[in-house]
């Protein structure tokens, strides 16, 4: 059942007004107005999203709210509308994006209180949220692509927010370019779908339209000899690896840490990186047709998850640890998606949104308190001075480490169980190990930051203070949801059990287990590895602080490899960037452009110059001469037709 619900447009319109206000009037109306408007519009969008969600709950399962705003592209029989659609999946995503986004905006009011460029910042933040809302509410693939590109643009704008620092600007560009590579895949995926569907006379890209004709996609595509769905699925997944930071395109995300910390929170929790997961879940009817592509997704996800976690355990920078943890957690999500448990992926998106936003905001609070210090080696023992930050960050850490009762536990458990039950034993094993690594690096972060002896620069030590209320309130709210957010997806049999999965089932379909699994055993194994990680972290960073250094020196090569992130940046630079630079510089710019093309241009100019010198005698200035020439032309054309008529 689809219900016309025009207020969906407001979810986009109100933030759009916020964008325009902040960018064009923000400086004129002053900081107070911006501080009110920027979080306000997102919060308003959240309220409307909640309204829509409430309507959805009241309707039978499988219902959706929809509105067609205006026709967008009309090219022959191919037509695309600017249309919005809110079903169970997009309702959940909209609420996450707008809700968590609103809290991050609120937090930003305090975090950016001393920045000169507040209006530009909030304008971009609003635009970022707006783009993500377009992405999740879109009714068709093309409109989703608009949002997809919008978040890419905004990530660039915000990562390079302090653009006067050349390194920051460079990192912004890096994020943008890496995203472009993925987007190319996404576009090719769209083209594939349009081509495949169009050649069967189906000229639509809307979810419902494509789903209704999905049997077309199982057809073999001649040039490749594989089903259309596989080609399209892999291309779209290539887009997802860029946006959601998976191997091989994850390299931009750690470098994106140079933006303001709330931006990182927004990118990691609410808006950008979950777009890939959402897209694949949204297109689950397509991916379900192509087991091979699903297999690729699952393997890449598990590998990403594992390797990102290994990198995270040695990073000294507090935000980089969190960045790699994000990559690792998104790997989990894709793992769930890749093995066919789409709902579990979205479930993890939700819980992750809560605790990862919280982690970043807490890290921001710490950095704020330490005047921009990000190196954990220069922290320690802060828990007395930052009690709220400490408490909330501890909750988030417990959540991400999947301690039972906290939200992360339910979602991660569901994914791992699905991985095992679908027969991917090795992937499950990697997931389990990653879970141990996760708890290790997260508690390493906690212990290095808040416990032990203070290593803070003495100059800064005396004015460390807790953040203002406008920053701590979002922390507390998020901490609350980091605990209870997972309770909507209790394991089967407990209380309302699996309510979340059942809510999403009409969109995502049911997960079908192929291997019998004992949920309790699996859960216990995961918990065991988690606790091992916790204990190891305690041993190495609290009980015996000298151990890490020894290990690092005894396995120096390995340690350095982890510290340098498996040399991936260096490899990319050597294999891709350098040849491209050579091609652009010496080869094309000097060789082809200066000698070849410029020669042609100069030659053309020379020819034109000289022939013009000869031809200008025709310009007598007497209009009648021109008219005569014109008449001769008319007569010549007429003569041709006379020839046609007579001959």
């Amino acid at each position, binding site marked *: 059942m689809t219900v016309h619900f025009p207020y969906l447009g407001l979810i986009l319109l109100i933030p759009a007004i916020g964008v325009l206000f902040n960018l064009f009037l923000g400086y004129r109306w002053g900081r107070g107005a911006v501080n009110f408007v920027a979080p306000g519009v997102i919060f308003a969008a959240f309220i409307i999203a909640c309204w829509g969600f409430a309507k959805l709950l009241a309707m039978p399962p499988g219902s959706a709210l929809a509105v067609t705003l205006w026709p967008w592209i009309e090219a022959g029989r191919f037509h695309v509308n600017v249309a919005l659609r809110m079903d169970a999946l997009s309702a959940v995503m909209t609420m996450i994006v707008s809700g968590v986004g609103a809290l991050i905006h609120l937090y930003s009011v305090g975090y950016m209180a001393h920045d000169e460029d507040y209006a530009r910042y909030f304008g971009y933040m609003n635009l970022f949220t707006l783009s993500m809302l377009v992405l999740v509410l879109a009714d068709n693939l093309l409109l989703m692509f608009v949002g997809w590109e919008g978040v890419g643009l905004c990530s660039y704008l915000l990562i390079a927010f302090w653009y006067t620092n050349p390194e920051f600007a460079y990192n912004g560009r890096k994020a943008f370019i890496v995203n472009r590579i993925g987007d190319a895949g996404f576009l090719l995926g769209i083209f594939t779908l349009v081509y495949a569907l169009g050649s069967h006379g189906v000229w639509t890209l809307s979810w419902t339209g494509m789903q209704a004709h999905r049997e077309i996609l199982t057809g073999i595509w001649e040039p490749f000899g594989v089903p259309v769905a596989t080609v399209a699925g892999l291309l779209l997944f290539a887009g997802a690896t860029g946006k959601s930071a998976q191997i091989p395109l994850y390299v931009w995300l750690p470098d994106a840490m140079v933006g303001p910390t709330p931006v990182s929170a927004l990118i990691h929790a609410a808006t950008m990186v979950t777009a890939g997961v959402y897209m694949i879940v949204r297109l689950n009817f397509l991916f379900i047709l192509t087991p091979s592509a699903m297999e690729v997704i699952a393997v890449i996800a598990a590998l990403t998850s594992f390797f990102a976690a290994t990198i995270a355990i040695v990073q000294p920078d507090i935000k980089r640890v969190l960045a790699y943890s994000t990559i690792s957690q998104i790997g989990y999500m894709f793992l769930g998606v890749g093995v066919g448990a789409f709902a579990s992926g979205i479930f993890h998106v939700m819980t992750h949104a809560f605790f990862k936003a919280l982690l970043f905001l807490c890290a921001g609070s710490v950095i704020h308190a330490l005047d921009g210090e990000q190196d954990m080696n220069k922290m320690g023992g802060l828990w007395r001075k930052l009690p709220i930050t400490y408490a909330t960050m501890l909750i988030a850490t417990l959540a991400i480490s999947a301690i039972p009762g906290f939200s992360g536990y339910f979602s991660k458990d569901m994914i791992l169980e699905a991985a095992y039950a679908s027969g991917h034993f090795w992937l499950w094993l990697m997931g389990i190990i990653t879970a141990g690594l996760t708890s290790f690096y997260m508690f390493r972060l906690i212990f290095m930051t808040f416990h032990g002896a203070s290593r803070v620069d003495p100059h800064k030590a005396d004015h460390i203070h807790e953040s203002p209320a406008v920053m701590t309130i979002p922390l507390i709210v998020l901490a609350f949801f980091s605990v209870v957010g997972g309770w909507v997806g209790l394991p089967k049999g407990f209380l309302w059990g699996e309510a979340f999965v059942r809510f999403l089932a009409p969109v995502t379909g049911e997960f079908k287990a192929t291997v019998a699994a004992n949920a309790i055993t699996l859960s216990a194994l995961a918990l065991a590895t988690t606790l091992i990680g916790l204990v190891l972290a305690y041993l190495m960073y609290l009980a015996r602080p000298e151990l890490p250094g020894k290990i690092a020196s005894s396995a120096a090569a390995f340690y350095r490899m982890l510290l340098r992130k498996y040399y991936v940046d260096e490899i990319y630079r050597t294999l891709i960037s350098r040849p491209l630079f050579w091609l652009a510089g010496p080869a094309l710019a000097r060789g082809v452009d200066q000698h070849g093309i410029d020669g042609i241009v100069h030659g053309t100019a020379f020819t034109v110059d000289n022939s013009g010198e000869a031809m200008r005698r025709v310009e007598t200035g007497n209009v009648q001469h021109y008219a005569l020439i014109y008449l001769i032309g*008319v007569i010549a054309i007429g003569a041709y037709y006379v020839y046609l*008529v007579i001959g």
Partner: protein
Amino acid sequence: MPLGLFIFLAAIAVLSALGVILQRNPVHCLLALVLTLLDMAVMFIGLGAVTVGFLQAIVYVGAIMVLFLFVIWLLNLQAEDRGGSRQLALKFFGVVGAAVLIAELFVFLVKAPSPAGMNHPPPLFGSIASLAGALFTNYLIAFEATSLLLLVAVIGAVALARHPAAAGSLSPAQGAQPVASGGSEARPVTPEHKAGGMG
């Protein structure tokens, strides 16, 4: 239209058209053109285009041609002198070109398919109602665009023809009646307003 009437009107049309291009005095040329246009208007009416025929008389003869008359007077043009550069080559080629053009057009007329006879027009054919019906449905955008064109032409004509010093320096006589200069400056474009109102 009866054949005799056609031949009569056609003869007048050709003679007066020749008068337009052969007379030396521009006012005489203009009168010949007025005669041609009126002759055409009669022909239009004879062909059933009653409204268009009358509008031709109102707009073309009653307004546009008067504008020409004004300009000829304003510039105080006399008969073209026979001296100066005669440009005989240009004239020769012009006449030859026109002759060739006419020959080509006649070839088309003879060879190309054309409607054999006059249809019996529907009732009210050419009436203002049928014209308005077409004008405000199928040709609405063109109609609106034309009104815009007229506006642009009015503004452009005023801007072009306005004397550069008109705004600043009024002669004493005009100084006593400031509006007079504005009125007389606006006068050359007068017929356009009319054409806009009528057309």
